[in-house]
Structure formats: structure tokens, C-alpha cells
């Protein structure tokens, strides 16, 4: 690891650390109820009482950002988990067995991959209605194909190596070969794609809530805070600044880590 990579790694670690602290803070307790309106604090500026100030309804922006980060982290983590879980299953089965099953599943995969993930999620939400869990399901489905592809490629490569043949000759069953001998070898590939996937999930979640889907109002979500603040962007830009900044920090931190992990 050279000096520049090291700097990147440390910066990524610090930023991700900040985001994680905010998440935990959001889980434990926020300074104010994020939905409580306070008429006397409308457009209040930054102060000790309200770190990031207040919005047009007098709600504490800091508290809202904390809860927003918590929700985004939760949704993104679930989305990536779904993607990795089903992606690994599809990827190993198609990569290991090949044949017509591979052909069918991979063409299906291509079809799903051909749509932008946000568009696909919009369709699913259009069918099943909005909400946090519908959003997780929608984005989760959209994230499966990319993981399936990565895993399939890796499994294809490993399957033809001699050590799998050797293990086959020891009399190992297919299940044992896949679980004990192939899956552990996917760790490194999966790790970096999980980081990248997580970034995409954060962006997708923010995009969806900006469009008004996902976490239902009045509960805060970073994307919706941005869209609500649009009207005040010239009078009180602060309302839009903080949720936007946090989204940038989340993605920046993870992509710095993703770039350097494994190097």
C-alpha cells in the first residue's frame, strides 16, 4: 500500500466513521423528536440548541438528518444483503452447473440488468405501493443481477481449477464442493462489490425518497428532505445543504474504502 492509497484509506475510514457515529446516534436518541414542529423556531439558524438550525416547520434539522442517515443505512444494508444473498445463490448455481439452467437464468438476469435499477424499482413500487419495506424489496430485486454476474464469473473460473477436480476425486458431493471449497474463495471479490453495491444502494434510496417513494412522511428521509428544501434553496439554503452534504459524505467514505480495500 503506497502513501496515496494509505491517505485514501484513512480518509475513507474517518468519513465512514463519522457516518457510523451518526447512524448509532440516530438509533439511540435524537436531541429532538424529528417530526415535532415548533412554530417559534421556524427557519432558526445554527446554534447550540439546533446544531443545523430548523426548517420551515421549525423541526430540528440535525435530528432529522440523524434519523434520515439511520433509515438510509438500514435500507441500503437490507438491499445489499438481499442482492448478495440471492446473487450468490444464482451465481453459484448457474456458474457451477451451466447448461440450460444457466442459459435461462442469465438471460433473465440480462433482462433485469437492461433496465436502470431506479426505473425497475419504480415499477415494483407502482405495483405494490410505496413504503420502506416495499422499497427494500424493489431495490433488492434490482440489485440481484449485478451480484449474480460477478459471482458467476468467479465460480466459472474456480470450477475449472485443478483443486476442484482434486476435491471431486476425493469423492466430495456437489454441495460440499460449492459450500466448502468454492464459496470461501469468493470473499475477496464479494467484499469490494459489496462496498460498491452499498454506494449504489445509498444513491438509489436517496433518489427514490427524493421522488417521494420509500419512507412515508412525516418521517424524515434524506432524499425527501432535499426535495422539500428545494423551495427555499435561495432564501435558506442551509435546509438543503445538510442532508445533501451527508449523502455526499456517505458515498465518498464508502467509495474511498472500496477503492483501497484489498490493495
Amino acid at each position, binding site marked *: 500500500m503506497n502513501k496515496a492509497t494509505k491517505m485514501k484509506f484513512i480518509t475513507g475510514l474517518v468519513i465512514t466513521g463519522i457516518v457510523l457515529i451518526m447512524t448509532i446516534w440516530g438509533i439511540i436518541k435524537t436531541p429532538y423528536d424529528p417530526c415535532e414542529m415548533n412554530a417559534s423556531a421556524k427557519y432558526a439558524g445554527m446554534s447550540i440548541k439546533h446544531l443545523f438550525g430548523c426548517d420551515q416547520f421549525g423541526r430540528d434539522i440535525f435530528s432529522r438528518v440523524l434519523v434520515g442517515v439511520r433509515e438510509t443505512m438500514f435500507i441500503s444494508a437490507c438491499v445489499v444483503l438481499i442482492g448478495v444473498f440471492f446473487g450468490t445463490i444464482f451465481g453459484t448455481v448457474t456458474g457451477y452447473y451451466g447448461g440450460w439452467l444457466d442459459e435461462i437464468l442469465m438471460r433473465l438476469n440480462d433482462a433485469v440488468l437492461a433496465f436502470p435499477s431506479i426505473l425497475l424499482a419504480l415499477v415494483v413500487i407502482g405495483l405494490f405501493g410505496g413504503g420502506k419495506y416495499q422499497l427494500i424489496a424493489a431495490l433488492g430485486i434490482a440489485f440481484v443481477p449485478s451480484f449474480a454476474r460477478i459471482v458467476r464469473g468467479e465460480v466459472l473460473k474456480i470450477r475449472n481449477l485443478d*483443486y476442484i477436480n482434486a476435491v471431486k*476425486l476425493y*469423492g466430495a458431493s456437489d454441495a460440499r464442493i460449492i459450500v466448502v471449497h468454492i464459496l470461501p474463495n469468493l470473499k475477496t471479490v464479494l467484499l469490494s462489490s459489496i462496498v460498491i453495491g452499498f454506494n449504489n444502494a445509498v444513491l438509489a434510496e436517496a433518489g427514490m425518497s427524493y421522488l417521494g417513494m420509500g419512507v412515508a412522511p412525516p418521517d424524515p428521509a434524506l432524499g425527501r428532505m432535499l426535495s422539500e428544501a428545494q423551495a427555499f434553496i435561495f432564501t435558506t439554503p442551509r435546509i438543503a445543504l445538510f442532508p445533501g452534504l451527508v449523502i455526499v459524505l456517505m458515498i465518498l467514505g464508502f467509495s474511498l474504502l472500496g477503492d483501497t480495500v484489498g490493495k
Partner: protein
Amino acid sequence: MLKVEDLCIKIHDKNSTATVVKDVDLEMKKGDILGIVGESGSGKTMTALAIAGLLSRHDMEKSGHIIFERINLLECERRVLRKIQGSEISMIFQEPLNSLNPIRKVGWLVEESLRIHTTLDKAERRERAIKALRDVELDDPEAVYNSYPHELSGGMRQRVMIAAAMISMPKLLIADEPTTALDVTIQAQIVELLKKINRESGVAILFISHDLSLVNALCENVLVMKNGLVVESGNCQNIFDNPKEEYTKKLIAAIPGNPFDRIK
């Protein structure tokens, strides 16, 4: 013990069919060492993989008989085949770098066959593995047991492979160009090791190589293959001294000098 009759292997591509092995016959008794020589693409590895049961069952067509201990390996059920694999037939491969799983320790890999076929506990497996590693003349079996494959040299890895293949005490060991990736002195050592193992445990060895001099040093009988056909077979010394086929003569002429002479 092993009898192969009229073995044909055809590989189907999208629109063409290639016959890679044509009417191969061979026979091995307990404790035999049989060599198969031939150039790249002569079908020697395909023959070995077919005997080991490692060829996939679709996208290629196999005909003939491979009879091992009275069971036809080409037609038997998967379950039976899997039982024979590992406990009765073992194989070592050309590239010792690729034939050990890089993320597992050597000891774990050597024990894998025991884990699948026996109910030995951890300590017993360890004991057997250390003994197997000692049998292949590794200097410090305990240290090798606890190291990862990348920490070992090519020759050591090949020895580990032999240990892993021999731990289940098979009746047939298929060695698919086990010395090709190694340098000349190590080649000679591995050949000596195989000889010793054959003498001590009575395992039959099917030794595949393109190096006639190694085959001559190890095997009693030899099969010369070209383009999927057996062009000449018989006692090694006879063929060496008195080759009948033009191809065999060329192969012998291609030997760059005996590696055993070179190290002596």
C-alpha cells in the same frame, strides 16, 4: 483390476464433433505402473480424466467400457462413482499451483478425503495426515501441515498432492504429467517417490507424460498415443530399444538426454 476397452470420447461443439480418443484399450493389474506418452493433444489426459470419472456427463459422448474392479465406470450411478472416487482412485495434476485450494491450510486439504469418507475424529485425522506427509518425504511434516499452499515450493506442493491422494489408500493413482511444471532434479525426485510409494503400498500408477525418459525410468509398460489413437504399446524396455512405429522413433529421438544421467 482396471480394464479399458474400445474407449472413444467425442466432444460436441456447436456444429462439429471432434473425436479426441479412439478405440483405446489398456489393462492394469494391482501394483502395475503403466505409462502413457504422446504429444500435446494426443488424448492422453482425456483418457485419464475418463478413467477418473472427471469428464462431465453432458456435451461429450463416451463409448466403450472402463471396468474397474468389475464395475463399469461409464455406466454406473453417480453415487457408486463418487464412492470409488476418493477411496479407490486418486489423481495428481500437472500444475501443483492450481491443485491446492489457496485459502486452506495444507493439513486441512490433505485431510479432506478422510473427512468425506471416514468418521475419524480430529486428532486421528491429524495423525494420519502427518504420517502421509512424512511418507512423501517432506522434511518437517508438522510445519507443512500448518502452512498455506503459497508458502511451499512447487516440488513440496506436488508432494503434498501425492500425500493427499494417497491418504485414502487408493488402488489406482493417476498421475497426469505430475512433473511437467517442475525442474529436472525435482522431476527425478518425484519419480523416485512414486516408485517408492508403488513398492510400499502396492498402488497401481497410471503415469502420463510427454517425456519418454521419465516413463522409461518409472514404468514397466507403456502406451504411445497420437491423435487419440494408441500407436504402439508393450514393455517399456522393448519399445525403447526397438521402436516399431515412426512416431515412437521420433519421440525417442526428441529426448534431450536422460535426466538421471544429468544429475548423477
